[in-house]
């Protein structure tokens, strides 16, 4: 079994080289922190933007319709890496250069602008999926439009929206792997650093993939639990 020992020793050496030597694992740990911070920030702000843009698109006001339509058109029609670089280098680099926010916040804003467009379409479709009779029942009881929307339509829409929204969260987390373009060291960039200092491709890149996979798997399980709770009223 000499070949096995040789192979196993090789793996161990490479693992040591890539992750242990010079404490290189700390790069990845810090990278996980960046990825999570950017993602959470972008999800929260993205939901706000998504809700606002969906309201614009659902509004009866033509001006708001136009804003919503242009926004979704522009965001969907351009690559997210271009958007990220425009937000970072043009908007915060030139126009708002006096603003001294952390890089990860600016990246989070860029991703929320992007994700907000997709979320708005999910929210819009979810709200439209609720039967008009629900609104009529609410209004006929004397609730105003806002009360009907928030107490009757949106709670039901959320349940329909949820699976598509989970998808969007997951896409968003993976999308943040481009933050290296603006000098942030996330999981992807950390793996890339290790690759270029050690001249090893296998360990750092597979390691990067595994970390993303685990994060998303944990998230999927957690969101699945939430969805089950939301479906409570469907059980017969």
């Amino acid at each position, binding site marked *: 079994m000499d070949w096995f020992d040789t192979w196993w020793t090789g793996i161990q050496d490479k693992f040591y080289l890539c992750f242990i030597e010079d404490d290189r694992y700390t790069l990845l740990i810090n990278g996980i922190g960046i990825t999570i911070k950017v993602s959470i920030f972008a999800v929260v702000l993205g939901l706000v933007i998504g809700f606002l843009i969906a309201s614009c698109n659902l509004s009866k006001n033509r001006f708001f319709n136009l804003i919503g339509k242009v926004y979704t058109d522009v965001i969907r029609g351009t690559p997210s890496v271009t958007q990220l670089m425009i937000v970072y280098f043009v908007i915060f680099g030139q126009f708002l250069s006096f603003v001294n926010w952390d890089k990860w916040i600016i990246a989070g804003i860029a991703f929320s602008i992007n994700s907000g467009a997709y979320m708005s379409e999910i929210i819009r479709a979810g709200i439209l999926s609720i039967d008009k009779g*629900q609104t009529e029942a*609410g209004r*006929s009881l*004397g609730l105003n439009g806002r009360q009907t929307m928030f107490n*009757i339509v949106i709670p039901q829409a959320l349940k329909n929206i949820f699976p598509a929204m989970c998808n969007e969260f997951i896409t968003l987390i993976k999308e943040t792997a481009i933050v290296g373009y603006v000098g942030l060291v996330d999981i992807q960039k950390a793996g890339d650093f290790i690759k270029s200092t050690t001249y090893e491709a296998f360990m750092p890149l597979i390691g990067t993939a595994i970390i993303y996979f685990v994060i998303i798997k944990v998230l999927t399980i957690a969101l699945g639990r939430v969805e089950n709770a939301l479906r*409570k*009223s469907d059980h017969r």
Partner: protein
Amino acid sequence: MIRIKNLHKSFNDLEVLSGIDEQINDGEVVVVIGPSGSGKSTFLRCLNLLETPDSGEIYVDDEQINSKDADVNRIRQKMGMVFQHFNLFPHLTVMGNITLAPVKLKKMTKEEAVATGNELLEIVGLAEKADSYPAQLSGGQKQRIAIARSLAMKPEIMLFDEPTSALDPEMVGEVLDVMKNLAKSGMTMVVVTHEMGFAREVATRVLFMDEGKILEKGTPDEIFDNPQNERTRQFLSKVL
């Protein structure tokens, strides 16, 4: 009391209501009958402004409800509406459905609303369903809950838009029974229905509508036993 003056309503080019004049007094049970597409549902939906009339005036207790500065939401609180397809809120329990509006509109505290809810569930015969979700109920049960939900706002007038049309035949009776008891209690009711038996037994007045007009009105005996209008006779000969 509801007064309707020269009510007109069109959808695109189709004139659905072409000049309705009517007065519905307190305590009356007015049943509106007529063929499909005659405008009876639209007429009913205009009464609580789920449809906006193109022209004409509607007064509830001498307040014009389709004027620009009428407080539609407050007026609707005085008028309960029961729909053909129940429109219960599927994400809320039966009790949640009943208490939502009274609590949100600050008409009652949560405790008062639950107490009222329990009384109403008793009246519609579904006291044990308070914690069920709509998906767990039969059609007839859903409609009885929908009636209880409207009554929770303590309305002065109840509007029924074909309340039994979406029900299995064997469930029609239980809903009509609730409505009969409601009529007996003195509630002002406007009912659009195809249940001629109900009209004959419970109505104080029957309106026959066709092509957007009220063609004939009278007591159930007058309409069913001695109709004057040719269209009324044709219609009744087909449905009775």
